[in-house]
Each structure stands twice: as C-alpha cells, then as structure tokens.
C-alpha cells in the first residue's frame, strides 16, 4: 500500500476529518507504531484537522512517512489560508479557546507527538507540522 511516501488530503467538511484520521491510522499501522503511539498521533491529527476546518475555513493535510537516519516516523502537515492566529502563545495555552471548545487541541497535540511546529500569519493562514517517531 505504501507506494508513495506522502499523500495530500483536502479538509472541507466533517467527513474529511474521518478520512484524515483513517489515512493517519493506516500509515501508522504500516510503519508499525505501537498502539499507544498510533492512538496518540491519530488523536493529534483529529485535533489539528478540526482546527483547520473550524478556524481555518478548510485546507489540506499532508500525511507522510519520513526518516531520521534509519528511524522512520510519521509526519503530518496541516495548512490553511484562513484568518491566521494573532497570538500563538495564547492559542497554545491550555484552556484558551477562541470558539466553544475546551481549548486543549493545540497544547494537547503538542504533548502527543515528538515534534510540533506552528507558524501563522494574520490574514494569510496557519501551518502546523507534527512528527511522531517510531
């Protein structure tokens, strides 16, 4: 199944969130991630994909297999051209929500993965990249 090292998925509706989770799960299984690590990255994917949809007004998810030396990992990149985040530090804080959520998505995702990078420009969009090594 793993013919390509990455795939790009559109995020435009609720059902797309299911697809992002499924693609993440499938690739994590292929990589042989443990059940705990698989559950962690799928959950982080769910959080970030939903942020992309709800706050970013939709966007894309790239699900990719990456290597650090001979250590394989799973990288996900979420990108949107929405309003962007004014104060990233505040957005990352547990309990802060600009909507009606618990405000745990960004901070929680960061704790669920090995690498977490976020960049955002007001009026231009947001990009979040996460990696979980095997």
């Amino acid at each position, binding site marked *: 199944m793993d013919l390509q090292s990455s795939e790009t998925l559109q995020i435009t509706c609720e*059902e797309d969130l299911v697809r992002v989770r499924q693609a993440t799960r499938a690739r994590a299984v292929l990589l042989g991630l443990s059940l*705990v690590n698989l559950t*962690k990255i799928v*959950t982080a994917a769910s*959080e970030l994909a939903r942020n992309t949809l709800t706050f970013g007004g939709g966007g894309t998810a790239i699900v990719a297999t990456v290597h650090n030396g001979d250590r394989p990992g799973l990288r996900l990149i979420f990108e949107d051209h929405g309003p962007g985040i004014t104060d990233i530090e505040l957005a990352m804080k547990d309990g802060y929500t600009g909507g009606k959520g618990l405000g745990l998505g960004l901070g929680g995702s960061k704790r669920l993965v090995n690498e977490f990078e976020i960049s955002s420009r007001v009026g231009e969009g947001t990009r979040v990249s996460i990696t979980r090594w095997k």
Partner: protein
Amino acid sequence: MGLESNSKLVEVLGEKGRVSLNDWKEAQWAAIKIRREPITEEELYREASDFMSLFQQAVKEAFLSDIRDPVWLKMREMLSALSISRARRGFTPTEMATFVLSFKQPLFEALKQAHGTDSGALLSDVWMTTVLLDKLGLYCVEEYQKTREAIISRQQKDLLELSTPVVQLWPGVLTLPLIGTLDSERTQLVMERLLQKIVDTGSQIAIIDITGVPTVDTLVAQHLMKTIAAAHLMGAECFLSGISPQIAQTVVHLGVKFGDIVTKATLADAFGLALKRIGLVVIKKSGE
C-alpha cells in the same frame, strides 16, 4: 480553440462517417466480459451509441475544447449518469475512464483514413480530439469519485445510526454502547436520545460505553462531559466505561480532565457498580 479549416472531424463523425461503433463496443465488451460484470452487450452498445451521437452533435454545433461550455451540457449529463450507475455497480475508476478513452482508437483510425497523406491536418485533428477526450475521461473519473464518496459517507452515517441503541440492562440501569466516529452532528442526537430515555424510563443510572470508539479527542470528550452533566441535573448518574489503556494515556496527555466522573475499564465493571448503587447484590446460588 476551434477546428482547422481542413479538419475532417465532422465528416468522419457524420452520417456516412467511418467511425466504427461496433468495433468500439466490441473492444469495450472484451475488456469487461472477462470480469462478467452485470452489464449486457446491448446496454454497452446503447451507451456507446449515445456517447457517439452526443459527441457528434457537440462537435457539429461548435468544436469547443472547454467541456464546461453549454455545448457539452448533454454530454456531461450523460457521462455523469453513467458514472453514477457504474460506481454503484462496482466498476473501477479505470474501467470508467476507459469507456471514454477507448473511443480514441476507432476515431483516430477513421481520421487517418479520411486524411490520407495530409499528415499535418491529421495531426491537428488527433491533437484536438485527444485533448477533448482526455478531459471527458477525467470528468467521468471525477463524477465516479463523487458517487463513491457519497456512498462511503452514507455508509458511515448509517453505521453510526445503527450502532447507537440505548439498551436497558436492568430496570433503572441504561447503557449506551457507542461504536465508531463520535464527532459528527449525530453525536448530539445520540446523546439527546440517551437523556430522553433516562426521562422515559426513570432510570437512575446510565452507562456510556466507549469500547468501540477508536478516537477520543477534545470534541468527543466535551460531548461526553456535557451529556454526563445533563444526566446529573436530571437526577441520574452516568458512568463511563470501556476506556482502553491507549485511550486513557492519550486523554491524559491531551489534558482532558474527566473530574469526578466515574470511569470503569469495562462495561461489566460498570454494571457491577450500577447494581450496587441501586442496592442489589449478585449472589451465587448455593450448591452450584
């Protein structure tokens, strides 16, 4: 982009045209017959002939390579209907695209004969039609894909709907075994149904079992907590069961705090506790 003045396209597609509908149909039939798809040779012939006459009409009216143009409306409608029916019958996307793309062979053959030695004119006609047929082929695949996605998302919805009955385990004890994706609009309905059932049955205890839920993210957690809080307000107690070790760890990292909500590893544990709460004890019959 229009046709060159020395184009023979309209001619080969015309009344006395040389494009062999039968050859085309035969080639398609041969490709499909191997798999014994539920399609008859007559059906295929009819579809091929519909396609060809719509193609003729559009080309005669005005050769436009933009298939979104109204000239192609009837063709798009026909291909869209065809894609839907083939997607439902389980044809592959390749087979769907082949329907259109395989038209190239008989068409090019006819153009070759009509143009004779004028290879410049032939090339121009071939190029124009190949661009066009590729677009129509891609259009079919897109339509096919839309249908498949609609089928999948409907199945997902069906599954969610099917898998959320509220079950009475004992008078006064309800359970809601959740299975599958929880974050769609349906979650709200499912939770409301549980609350309604609590009222209808006057139950004191409800167990929400999430054994079958693969992902518990912040939204799912929020739905669960809201439902449990609402049940409390109605005077019932809610237990959460079926939390696997991996979900427990993930939820902790996520930072979700279930507070004083009673959680149990299995539905059996939760049921045992429920019986205790309503003042019942299970005892083994002596001598057995």
